[in-house]
């Protein structure tokens, strides 16, 4: 169970995240940006679509960190933490993938009228989500809690190791319409400084939102475990 001090810290961070993200949302719509053909107002998706992936990566790091902890200490609470961080990571990954599809449909594929064209970046991102999907399936295959925690931890560390390759290294070496591919710079010189002022706070805000959702789920799982001896949520 969470101590009173931990609960207080949770409420404080939650409230800061709520205010922070509200400011980001408002600024994301209000602040004028350069008008670029094809992109037009969809350039504002930089504040919302891209932080989904940053948040997903941060969440997988948290998850892997706790999985390492499971192997070191056999702590079941860290198994709960690894599982819930991975769950929220996948939620952000799905949001990143679907927002990316919508964005691509009306920019890359605006004349072609297609939603999915196996662009390497998108395909590898989808593969990444499937790798995490297997983690949840694997957990259901083992009944004994400590054994399940250890087996899942080993797989989860493998899954986290694939993240930088599938989301960063491999897509950069292939031809893709997505920024950050061969001959297509991601961000550096081509982004207006005004957009960075909103983009970086957006990343921090969404990672904070991950922390809130993750902590809420961990607390719920702990209560469930206390009542039913089964922490799976």
């Amino acid at each position, binding site marked *: *169970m969470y101590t009173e001090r931990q609960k207080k810290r949770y409420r404080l961070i939650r409230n800061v995240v709520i205010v922070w993200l509200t400011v980001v949302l408002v600024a994301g719509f209000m602040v004028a940006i350069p008008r670029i053909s094809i992109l037009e107002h969809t350039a504002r998706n930089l504040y919302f679509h891209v932080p989904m992936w940053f948040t997903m990566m941060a969440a997988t790091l948290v998850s892997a960190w706790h999985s390492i902890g499971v192997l070191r200490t056999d702590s079941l609470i860290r198994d709960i933490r690894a599982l819930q961080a991975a769950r929220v990571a996948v939620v952000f990954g799905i949001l990143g993938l679907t927002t990316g599809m919508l964005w691509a449909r009306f920019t890359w594929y605006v004349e072609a009228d297609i939603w999915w064209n196996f662009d390497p970046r998108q395909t590898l991102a989808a593969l990444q989500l499937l790798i995490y999907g297997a983690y949840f399936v694997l957990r259901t295959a083992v009944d004994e809690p400590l054994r399940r925690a250890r087996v899942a931890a080993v797989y989860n560390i493998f899954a986290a190791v694939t993240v930088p390759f599938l989301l960063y290294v491999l897509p950069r070496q292939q031809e893709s319409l997505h920024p950050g591919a061969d001959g297509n710079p991601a961000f550096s010189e081509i982004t207006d400084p005004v957009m960075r002022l909103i983009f970086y706070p957006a990343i921090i805000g969404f990672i904070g939102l991950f922390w809130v959702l993750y902590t809420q789920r961990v607390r719920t799982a702990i*209560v469930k475990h206390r009542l039913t001896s089964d922490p799976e949520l």
Partner: protein
Amino acid sequence: MNLPTGIAMYLLQEAPDRAAEAAPYDSIWTDAGSNAASGAFEQVMLSNDKLFVVLGVVLIIWIGLIVLLLRTDRRLASLERTVEENIPEEDPLAPPTETSSDRTTP
């Protein structure tokens, strides 16, 4: 850049002439210029292709989600209190001490 400057920059932008692009069945969309905007609020909402109406919709959804988050938190906190009061102290999630040391010695 502060926000009022951002709004001012919007209001200063010229309304694009869309009459030439209009397709059959379109009503011609001429941006805020042709709307007889009365109040300041209405002027802002109609400016910049009515982008701020979308902001309003997004904020309503966001506030709804926040309310859900806060209500869930309150219920969780009260559930935690109930469990703590009714179920004895032993902590089933504490790391096992004997089993883990067994494991390290083959």
